[in-house]
């Protein structure tokens, strides 16, 4: 068991009072930064970077990984409390967590999601520790055709998020696709619809979700004169720590989410997003009460939240084994590794194994600390919310405006956020689902590009989807699922008809 020896060695490296204190502080700071709308791992790491100069490599990396993990935990807080998710994987958290907050169960939502995050993160880390080289050696055989099929599967969950209003869902999906086409298109080299220079790189996704969810909700609540009554600040622990009942309801979804997140999180780009949406669809499918999804369902909150955090170590696998960053956050980690004089690449584990294992041990420790500190922080955040509930509309507006400003340090993204705020308000008022819209914004450009790359790899022929064993397998599985669900529906209808006839 080489992996265990290495891990113990890594722990030996980091278990000093100084490092432990650093990881704990970094996790806390990361949580707070991640909780602010518009700020994510990059802001957190940029903030901490100057402090790491002059530290030993292992301590510096512990600091950065602690902040990184912390922002992942922090993202849920604003999703649940003010309906302002900070990134795409956190959208489901808002979808199920925010209704719980409105029902006065915000603390419970935070507690459950902290536990699922912990389990998901731990599961992903275990896979990272024991299976990273194996997974990496297979992952390289995935290419544009497989990625395209995965993105297409993700987009197909639109059907599930649509509910009973297919036409409305399709309209907002089309709108999402159109919004995503802005900016430079690296496959053709053309720049599409850049009416002003700021649009050359497309519309900032975070500005879209801050507006659509956070600000849209404020407009809606102002109109409906929604008055929150969350009671006075208090510290009853029972409110914050999920009981046996909630935990048993969350257990199975958390486990399923962890597995799905680790597997799909390895896919670069939108792996984590696709995984959370697929997991949400899966949980809705398996649920005995699918109609309660969207109104604060615990399974719908716990599963995707575990998926989201399991995908973090998953996306570190290609970084550590191949030197290839799979997501925005890991790209920043790559920069940090280089800054510490390491050379990320296939030889990283051989040349600097001790530091990498210390970093992994730091991640394990950070995950444990973060569970503890996040559970302890719940009363702080919930009571903060209670303290400002009389002026909540203004607090959210201010956070959204300043958060949008900090995306590029310019008012441009405030305009974007305002426009999508109005859109979010109109959609909410008229019962148009936002999930399909966001999914289209994230996945449509990826699906478009991967499809074009696939056809280019096939030198103009789409046969490539059938020639590659993995993509062929995915296609067959997708066809089987489709056939089964169509067959099931037909049989269900026939039974219903027979039952109706028998009843006559």
């Amino acid at each position: 068991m080489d992996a265990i020896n290495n891990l113990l060695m890594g722990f030996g490296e980091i278990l000093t009072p100084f490092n432990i204190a650093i990881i704990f502080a970094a996790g806390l700071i990361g949580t707070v930064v991640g909780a602010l709308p518009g700020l994510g791992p990059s802001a957190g790491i940029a903030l901490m970077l100057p402090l790491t100069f002059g530290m030993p490599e292992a301590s510096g990396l512990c600091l950065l990984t602690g902040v990184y993990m912390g922002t992942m935990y922090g993202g849920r807080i604003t999703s649940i409390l003010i309906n302002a998710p900070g990134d795409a994987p956190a959208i489901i958290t808002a979808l199920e967590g925010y209704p719980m907050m409105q029902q006065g169960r915000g603390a419970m939502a935070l507690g459950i999601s902290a536990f699922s995050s912990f389990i998901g993160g731990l599961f992903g880390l275990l896979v990272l520790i024991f299976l990273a080289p194996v997974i990496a050696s297979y992952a390289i055989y995935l290419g544009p055709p497989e990625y395209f099929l995965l993105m297409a599967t993700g987009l197909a969950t639109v059907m599930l998020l649509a509910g009973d209003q297919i036409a409305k869902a399709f309209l907002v999906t089309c709108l999402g696709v159109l919004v995503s086409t802005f900016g430079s298109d690296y496959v053709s080299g053309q720049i599409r619809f850049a009416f002003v220079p700021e649009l050359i790189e497309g519309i900032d996704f975070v500005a879209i979700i801050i507006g659509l969810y956070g600000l849209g909700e404020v407009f809606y609540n102002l109109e409906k004169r929604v008055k929150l009554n969350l009671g006075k600040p208090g510290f009853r622990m029972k409110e914050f720590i999920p009981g046996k009942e909630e935990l048993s309801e969350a257990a199975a979804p958390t486990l399923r989410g962890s597995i799905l997140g680790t597997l799909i999180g390895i896919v670069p780009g939108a792996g984590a997003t696709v995984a959370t949406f697929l997991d949400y669809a899966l949980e809705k499918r398996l649920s005995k009460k699918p109609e309660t999804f969207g109104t604060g369902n615990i399974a719908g909150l716990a599963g995707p939240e575990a998926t989201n955090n399991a995908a973090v170590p998953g996306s570190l696998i290609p970084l550590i084994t191949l030197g290839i960053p799979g997501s925005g956050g890991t790209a920043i980690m790559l920069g940090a590794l280089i800054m510490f004089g390491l050379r990320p690449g296939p030889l990283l584990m051989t040349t600097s194994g001790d530091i990498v294992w210390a970093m992994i041990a730091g991640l394990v420790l950070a995950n444990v600390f973060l569970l503890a500190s996040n559970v302890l922080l719940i009363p702080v955040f919930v009571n903060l919310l209670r303290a400002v509930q009389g002026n909540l509309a203004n607090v959210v507006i201010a956070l959204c405006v300043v958060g949008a400003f900090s995306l590029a340090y310019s008012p441009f993204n405030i305009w974007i956020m305002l426009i999508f705020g109005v859109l979010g308000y109109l959609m909410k008022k008229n019962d148009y689902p936002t999930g399909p819209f966001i999914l289209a914004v994230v996945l449509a450009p990826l699906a478009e590009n991967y499809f074009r790359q696939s056809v280019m790899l096939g030198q103009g022929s789409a046969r490539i989807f059938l020639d590659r064993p993995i993509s062929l397998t995915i296609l067959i599985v997708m066809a089987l699922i489709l056939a089964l669900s169509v067959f099931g529906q037909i049989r269900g209808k026939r039974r219903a008809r027979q039952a109706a006839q028998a009843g006559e």
Partner: protein
Amino acid sequence: MRASELLLIAGTAVFAAVIGVQSANFQYFSKQGFGPGFVPMNFAILAVLLAAYLAVKARLKTDGPFLPQGISERLKAAFPAIATAALLFGATALMAFGSVLAPLYAVMVAISLAFLGHTIARALVVNAVTLAAIYGIFSLWLNIPVV
């Protein structure tokens, strides 16, 4: 049909139409597979068709007149949302002069007074405290140049 839904559908259709026309500047097919104009063009057409379908469906469903009725009452009900949005758009335009927080403060005070029922003193103080906290976090702590 509600005025706000009509606005949403019409807005989407106009936006899609603009993108559709603009996308004619880009190749529909390229040497291999489809070009940069393919996706925007097709989805713009699809969006316009879906918008038309939703509008027609709403027309067939309701017995009443197609165009929304009692607009002035509806507007009154939606006034807080419309006013807030308008204030924010105005404030963002003022941000071109350099300050983000000053116009924001004015909007927040206006919302407090008009929709949250705060007294003038409370509105001025509470929002100043809120912005001070935000300034402390974003500018002093995180070094984001927001003023």
